[in-house]
């Protein structure tokens, strides 16, 4: 467990700090995320995603749950599907393993414009407004391209050709 904390602590901390501030609150959410991780670790299905993806999923869900608790109208913010729903109920024959290799393969097939936005948002950690300032693109265009890019990536990951070629 200490090895797991050492390997993924930075990932969980970084994801949660994107959503939760101040740091004292982020620390509480990190503790909640690891508590959930220990409780649900035996349900991890490596055919669906890598360990890092599942841990990232828990970190995001906990962060969004925190945002909902802080919101005056939490009912308006959809909570991501529960961990158990993701690892069991929503598995389909088309579902691909979301690991680094398959993600990289799908990303490489997106347009260069979409790839750049994904890179700025996920690797660079920039908000939509920061991306707009950096690229000069309208905010609406950035949102639309990221959404379309995610839909395209899902289709690419479901494509047997993509999975065979890349994994």
């Amino acid at each position, binding site marked *: 467990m200490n090895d797991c904390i050492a390997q993924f602590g930075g990932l969980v901390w970084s994801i949660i700090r994107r959503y939760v501030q101040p740091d004292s609150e982020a620390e509480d959410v990190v503790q909640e995320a690891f508590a959930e991780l220990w409780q649900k670790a035996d349900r991890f299905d490596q055919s669906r995603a890598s*360990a890092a993806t599942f841990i990232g999923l828990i970190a995001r869900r906990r962060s969004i749950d925190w945002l909902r608790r802080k919101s005056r109208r939490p009912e308006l913010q959809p909570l991501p599907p529960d961990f158990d729903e993701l690892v069991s109920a929503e598995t389909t024959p088309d579902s691909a393993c979301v690991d680094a290799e398959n993600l990289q393969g799908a990303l490489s097939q997106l347009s260069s414009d979409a790839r750049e936005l994904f890179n700025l948002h996920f690797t660079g950690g920039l908000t939509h407004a920061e991306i707009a300032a950096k690229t000069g693109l309208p905010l609406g265009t950035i949102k639309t391209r990221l959404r379309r890019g995610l839909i395209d990536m899902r289709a690419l990951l479901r494509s047997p050709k993509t999975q065979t070629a890349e994994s």
Partner: protein
Amino acid sequence: MKPTELKQRFDELDAARALGDLSPEEQAEWFQLVETQGFSPDGEFDLLVAGLEAAGGEVATAPPAGLIKKLQAEAEHFMPRPAVAEVIPFWRHPALGWAAAAGLAVALTVMTPRTETEPSAADLRGALLARNDVLQWDFSGTPEFAQLNGDVVWQDESQTGFMRFSGLPANDPQQCQYQLWIVDPQRDSAPVDGGVFNIPARDGEVLVPIRAALGVSSPVAFVITVEKPGGVVVSQQEIVAAIAQRG
């Protein structure tokens, strides 16, 4: 709008949901499509976003040293303990799946039957009650669980406690499980997950140890709910079985 167009629109909104950039108007539209068209959120979007964030996490910032120490200390609460005959083993081993998947070298304590030298759950509860800084509250069953008798014993400093039940109906772990929630407003407005547990189909008293997922400092109530197998992160409290609270 045609059904295929509605589905395309929902996909766009659901991708935005996973990306976390739905506007209030789009949130309302998302809920409307869920309710009127029967669409449901696609977890693959969430896995994709989590995977992309994890991939971006190669440049992750190291957490504060103090936080790492807290995480390590709390992880010890989830390590397997020797099985005790009187206790329902509700805490499944947490590290095995991750260890196998991530190739991590995690030292596991083997669950072993209780030996003569190990204290029973009843002994441990008795020792806890001997302290003068322990709370002991009776459980009250809700109307559907009116035949329930029991109490909770909890000690803040050691973060240990036990629940004692009789008359709590046996559950089928494949259908549902009981889950404990500890209400501690000084910590958070949301209750702390106290873990899931089962009640076996036999007469007599059942002792269940408490291992709070997070630190609890000033509990004001202990609530038992009925949840799906494995428990939930946030309970909707649709079925509340019992409550023990400060008198």
